[in-house]
């Protein structure tokens, strides 16, 4: 199973929500869809879930076009919207049963599917509660359960972690990891970047309808981090260490930050190791020597401009 988005384009009046975006990933992977508000994340999700038709380009779920064969695509896709179910007069079991019926499940097949979902999402002890009476975390579980009823190979989640408390987030993360192990392809949009770093195998960064970066966090980091950054905290003789570093040909820049020397090096980890060896050989005593790495937040902030459609 492969999700492939090809030159997807969508225009709303004067606003170009999607400007020819392309990306792809395989089943068993969780991909994060990151971008500022109005970047085109929800539009992409709605097109992938066949709720919307693109003005140009196409998207394929396991080779099936969302434009040409949306009925077939729906069988493979489960969608978790950002809005949680809020009905006051419908219980969890009735809600899940209703959607199982809406997917055309009958008899034993429906009962089996419902049992599996209840067991998987752990909502068994609240089946008789109305949806409005559930916590946000439990509502999210019910919402995920609903999306999984027809056993889709692809799951699209729009801001699934929004508004959840830390415990519910951890539970959601565990749930997603299990789904990825079951070879489901998961695309989730989120504003909580630290969350995505922990859950996702890869990210797609989008802004103003254009893909800025796509790939695993490590790959993007490698692309963006052309220079190696080292943070060095000498035990003493800080100024001498600074002078020694400046003499090295591979050192491009050096400044002091929070009591540490931050060095920009033109080279890879090997160059970093050479610098450490040199400093030790020169008799400098170092309390700390580490490679400064970018996290998803740094990546996001460095490549997006905060532009909104």
């Amino acid at each position, binding site marked *: 199973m492969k999700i492939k988005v090809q030159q997807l384009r969508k225009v709303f009046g004067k606003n170009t929500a999607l400007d020819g975006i392309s990306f792809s990933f395989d089943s068993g992977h969780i991909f994060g869809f990151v971008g500022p508000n109005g970047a085109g994340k929800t539009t992409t999700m709605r097109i992938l879930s066949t709720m919307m038709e693109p003005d140009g380009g196409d998207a394929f779920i396991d080779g099936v076009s969302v434009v040409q064969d949306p009925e077939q695509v729906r069988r493979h896709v489960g969608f978790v919207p950002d809005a949680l179910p809020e009905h006051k007069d419908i219980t969890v079991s009735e809600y899940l049963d209703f959607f199982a019926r*809406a997917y055309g499940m009958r008899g034993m097949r429906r009962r089996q599917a419902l049992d599996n979902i209840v067991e998987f999402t752990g909502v068994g002890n609240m089946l008789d509660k109305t949806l409005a009476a559930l916590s946000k975390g439990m509502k999210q579980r019910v919402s995920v359960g*609903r999306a999984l009823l027809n056993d889709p190979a692809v799951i699209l989640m729009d801001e699934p972690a929004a508004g959840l408390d830390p415990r519910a987030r951890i539970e959601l993360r565990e749930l997603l990891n299990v789904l990825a192990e079951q070879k489901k392809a998961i695309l989730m949009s989120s504003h909580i970047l630290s969350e995505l770093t922990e859950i996702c195998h890869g990210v797609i960064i989008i802004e103003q309808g254009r893909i800025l970066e796509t790939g695993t966090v490590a790959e993007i980091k490698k692309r963006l981090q052309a220079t190696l950054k080292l943070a060095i905290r000498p035990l003493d003789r800080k100024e001498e260490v600074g002078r020694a570093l400046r003499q090295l040909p591979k050192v491009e820049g050096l400044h002091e930050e929070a009591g540490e020397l931050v060095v920009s090096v033109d080279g890879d980890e090997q160059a970093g190791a050479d610098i450490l060896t040199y400093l030790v050989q020169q008799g400098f005593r170092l309390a700390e020597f580490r490679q400064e790495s970018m996290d998803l937040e740094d990546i996001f902030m460095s490549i997006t401009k905060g532009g909104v459609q």
Partner: protein
Amino acid sequence: MMRLDWFSDRINPVVLRESRQLVRSRFAVGIMMLFLAIMVVVSGLYVVSMNQNAGRSFTHGQELFGILSAVMSLAMILFVPAHTALPLLLQRNTSGMDLLLISTIRPRAIIWGKMAAAFWMTILLLSVSMPFMLFTVLLRGIGLFEVLASMATTVAFVMVATAGFLVLVNLPFSRVMLWLMSVGYIMQLFIFPTVLSSILLLGRRGGVPTEYYITMASLVAISLPILTSLAIALVSPAVSNRALGPRVTITVCWLVSGIVCLILKNDASEAWLVLSMIGASIAMLVSASEPSVPSQRVRRSIPRNPLLRLPAFPFFSGPLSGWTWCLLIGFVTFLACHSTASSIYSINFFTEFVPFMLYFLAYSLMAAFLRRVTFIRRFCPESMTWLLGGFLIALGCILPFIANFIIDPTSGPDLLWELGNPFAVWDDPEEHQVFATLLCLLLVLLNGRWLVGQLRSFRPPQAVQDAEGAE
């Protein structure tokens, strides 16, 4: 148990959900209890206040029935449509409908499910009032048939009111606008049962006339399928051929009612022509708001055979398709009425509606033209072209009057100042016809490229690709 499961599996899930919600809803149970209480109180008060000659009076049952049927109609016509349709309005921003549409359930199943649930709710309320209604038969002055006929009429009205409300809550307007319209709709629903009760009570002395039941049955038979098909179309995704269902339904209703009316002749055929022409004229304005380029998904359902494509064209979403369909309806209606007219008066009456319809076409074309080529497009999306058309009609009616008043306040309305007013065609239909035809031709020319573009884009996906490749 096995049979129950089998039945439960085959029942529309929307009906099942609505029924469950009805049973659980405190509001619904509260309304039912209130309804029952009102029935008990009204019947009790009436019986207590009956004079001592009750045994000799033959009108007590009739009087009590009048009061009870008014209460019953009011309660049902207000409660059932609101309970059925308002959740759709509340769910508008919660993705509820989207989630349903990406399941395998069809839009028609959603609306039919809602309608079926409304029907069962109505029957439930009727069963509550049934003992009181039968009690009126015992009091004399009214027959069992009239009681049952009245109940059936109420059920029919409730269903029409529900379908109408389902159309309203799915209109593509803002939530605030829809709430305002819903309040207006609910308020106007008060009028129907009142009028219905009045007619029933008025006709009681000589018995309820058969024409009354025939007229009501005809109205229900036409409006119920049309409103239901409109609701289904509005629930359907925007990228589907939304026009197909309503146009097929309206065409069938128009055809059947036309055949019946032409057989009955005179008043019936005049009524058919008036309704058909006015309906087609309004549909022209609505058609102007349809997407002019069919989406990829709509294109998939366009017949590949060019011979089938021609008759299919009027049944697809699009301004030109819509106008073609409206003109066909208008033209055939006029021809049928004209050829079967029994008097010169009827022929003249039929002829007056031709310029009326042409004016609506002209204003629809004008709205489409102005929206496309002028600054209006900045603030008027394609879907709101109908509003622009309505505004232009209003201008066409008012501006000449104002101009006439400014230029010569002493003179009365003159033909020159009435040209362009679709509601002034009755005085000089021939002159209006010439003017409206010329106006239409001019606007067709102005919209020429756009209209031809619509014709050319009416092809299945592969044919479009081939044509683009050839170009």
